[in-house]
């Protein structure tokens, strides 16, 4: 059986670190450092360079491990390392980015094999401030590529919202 772990990946600033912090029961182990890229600094001060790590203890004492990847492309080598053996993938996309649909495609392509073997759910963040592109645009794009994954709005700061995504992921793993 796979390790009990779920991996959060997706675009820079989408809220991977925030989402894990929102639901983890231990203080998140984070490797965020001060960012130097102009496009990062426009939005936030720090960026993840290795990983985020959080935990939830299940009733039988087993741990559900939550890993977050760095979002920036240059840390791509961490993506595969972290995803190895995971139950499934949560892909977060920042709707306020310059090409959010392009970003999604990049992550789906990168993790294609992993997704085929397990499953994934896509959360679109910052829709409160940036409603466009809307969900339909994401679905149209995915349908053209024959991809049937859930796309749901998420606010990474809200634990309910993050829980909803994981619920969808579990349902995809079991029934989808």
């Amino acid at each position, binding site marked *: 059986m796979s390790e009990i772990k779920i991996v959060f990946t997706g675009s820079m600033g989408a809220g991977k670190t925030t989402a894990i912090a929102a639901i983890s029961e231990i203080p998140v182990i984070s490797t965020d450092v001060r960012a*130097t890229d102009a496009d990062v600094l426009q939005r936030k001060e720090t960026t993840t360079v290795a990983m985020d790590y959080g935990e939830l203890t299940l009733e039988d004492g087993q741990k559900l491990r939550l890993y977050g990847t760095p979002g920036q492309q240059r*840390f791509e080598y*961490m993506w595969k390392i972290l995803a190895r053996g995971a139950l499934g993938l949560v892909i977060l996309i920042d709707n306020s980015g310059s090409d959010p649909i392009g970003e999604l495609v990049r992550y789906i392509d990168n993790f294609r094999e992993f997704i085929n073997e397990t499953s994934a759910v896509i959360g679109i963040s910052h829709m409160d401030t940036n409603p466009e592109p809307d969900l339909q645009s994401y679905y149209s794009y995915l349908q053209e590529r024959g991809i049937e994954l859930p796309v749901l709005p998420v606010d990474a700061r809200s634990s309910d919202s993050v829980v909803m995504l994981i619920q969808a992921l579990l349902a995809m793993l079991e029934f989808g």
Partner: protein
Amino acid sequence: MLAPAIVKQVEVRLDKLLEMCSAVDAVVVATLDGHLCAMKQREKSYSLERLATMGSTLMSLGDTITAELAMGTCDNIISENRNGVVAFMHINDDLVLVSLTTSKNSLGMLLGYSRSCAQDVAKMV
């Protein structure tokens, strides 16, 4: 990121490191968030951009580990391998120095010369 004039100065210092210590094969200065600032190598044999980014990943993991153990900031991380040694060290809070040698027996030299190079670079930036 560093101003071009400072990058020049840093590069001169890195050249000096290669000159002073023949065992060092390549050296990189990177930001802690993984951007290459300056590099020098004897032969064009390594992709130093990637080394810069990976150096930042490893250094921040080192910091995370030492913080967890309440041991202060992480000074160096050493990777000893069959065909050489890689050293990662903090220049200051924002910069990392990564140096490497293909000679297995030069760990001490690599560390000593790299540390003094890092101290000099810290004064420049």
